[in-house]
């Protein structure tokens, strides 16, 4: 089969019944030959949790695993930082986003693709939704902080009255 040829519904599947058909109820189900075989993860299984437990690795394997995790974490942090930097440059992002819709005379290009317009509209809606969400969360926190502040002042004034 070539790479670009999708598997058809008539894909030969050897001795198996077609997998997309409901498996038959009753005793004629063909058991998977893999049942009870070893897992491929080299990390031993903890029987209490039925999950791989890296604390049971040999020391040199544990060190290799930790080194891989360190690299993974560093890469993830770097990519996350790159994304954040993009977010904190809203002016540049907005300018780049609008560029597709307006030329240097402030007019939309004659043949601007509809897909680009729709994508830009969705992107802006997404940003607006995020900002509204953050605003709502900040308002929520403000209300809570004000409640705590009011309560604290009330307690303070009571204690002063008592004195």
């Amino acid at each position, binding site marked *: *089969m070539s*790479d*670009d*040829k*999708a*598997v058809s*519904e008539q*894909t*030969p*599947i*050897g001795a*198996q019944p*077609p*997998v*997309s*058909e*409901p*498996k*038959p*109820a*009753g005793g004629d*189900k063909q*058991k*998977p*030959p*893999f*049942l*009870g*075989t070893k*897992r*491929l*993860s*080299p*990390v031993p299984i903890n029987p209490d*949790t*039925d*999950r*791989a437990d*890296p604390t049971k690795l040999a020391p040199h*394997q544990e060190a*290799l*695993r930790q*080194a*891989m*995790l360190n690299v*993974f974490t560093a*890469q*993830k942090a770097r*990519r996350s930082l790159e994304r954040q930097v993009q977010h904190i440059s809203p002016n540049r992002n907005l300018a780049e986003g609008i560029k597709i819709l307006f030329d240097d005379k402030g007019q939309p290009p004659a043949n601007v693709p509809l897909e680009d317009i729709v994508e830009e509209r969705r992107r802006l809606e*997404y940003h607006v*939704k995020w900002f509204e*969400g*953050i605003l*709502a*969360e900040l308002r*929520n926190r403000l209300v809570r902080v004000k409640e705590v502040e009011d309560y604290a002042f009330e307690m303070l004034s009571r204690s002063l009255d008592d004195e």
Partner: protein
Amino acid sequence: MAAPIFLLAPPRSYTSLVNAMLGQHPQAFGLPELCLFNVEKLVDLWRGSEGPISENGAVARHGLMRALAEIYGGEQTTATINMARAWAGAREDWTSGRVFQEIVAKIDPLVAVEKSPSYTMSKIRMQWMYEAFPDARFVHLIRHPIGQCKSLMAINEGAFAIKVEAIEFREDHCVLEPQIAWYDLNLNILEFLDTVPDSQQIRMRGEDIMGSPEKHLAQIAEWAGLRTDAEAIEEMMHPERSPFACFGPINALFGNDPNFLAGPVFEPHKPKIPRLSDPAPWRDDGGGLYPEVIEMARWFGYE
């Protein structure tokens, strides 16, 4: 109480889409990822994680919070999410199974449809599901290992592979190898399903559903005892109509794959399926699939 339908599959196996499609059936209710059976008791979802990259962080609660807000509050807002937190707080020492039963009873007679790929990380979790719902139906959803692994590695830098310790040790270093996760999680599912009566399980290739959704979703509906008329099938073609097919309020944004939340519209297509003998694109040494992975994939019907 209608027995729920659980989708069992490793992540990136079309679970979000299929779950939402089945959930749009007029007789069904598609839930977000509740992740309830990740833990034995509800309070454990708040007790933090089993490690720095565990699946039981705050995001794992978003699906449950959104479901409770929608079911009990009628909408998903900051206020109803706060109500959902209170609901959960009042039941913190309940078992996950009991909490799930309460949700299923609330939406009865609609059939609950749920998938949380993290359930497949341990047979114990799947056993908890089965103990809570001995009459539950299970759909084992499969995806070609190369397609699934490529997709897995493109999400969150492949962090899920670490969660299941999908590591290949080499001479002086080790690398993430997502096909280990594909194999081990499918093996977990197969071993679990071996304890479930045949009438309560069905296996489907995700690529088949994407290519001929009407036919294959109708098969699942018929197997599950749901209507298969044209109206019901048409409803299932619109996963975007689910109340959970979008980002939630700021205090419970997710509850599903962010890619699905950003673009939940279904467009029928025949996914391109590579050959099992092709090189694995995520490998830096030009290697391909392991023989064990190829054998299992063949058993699932891939070439």
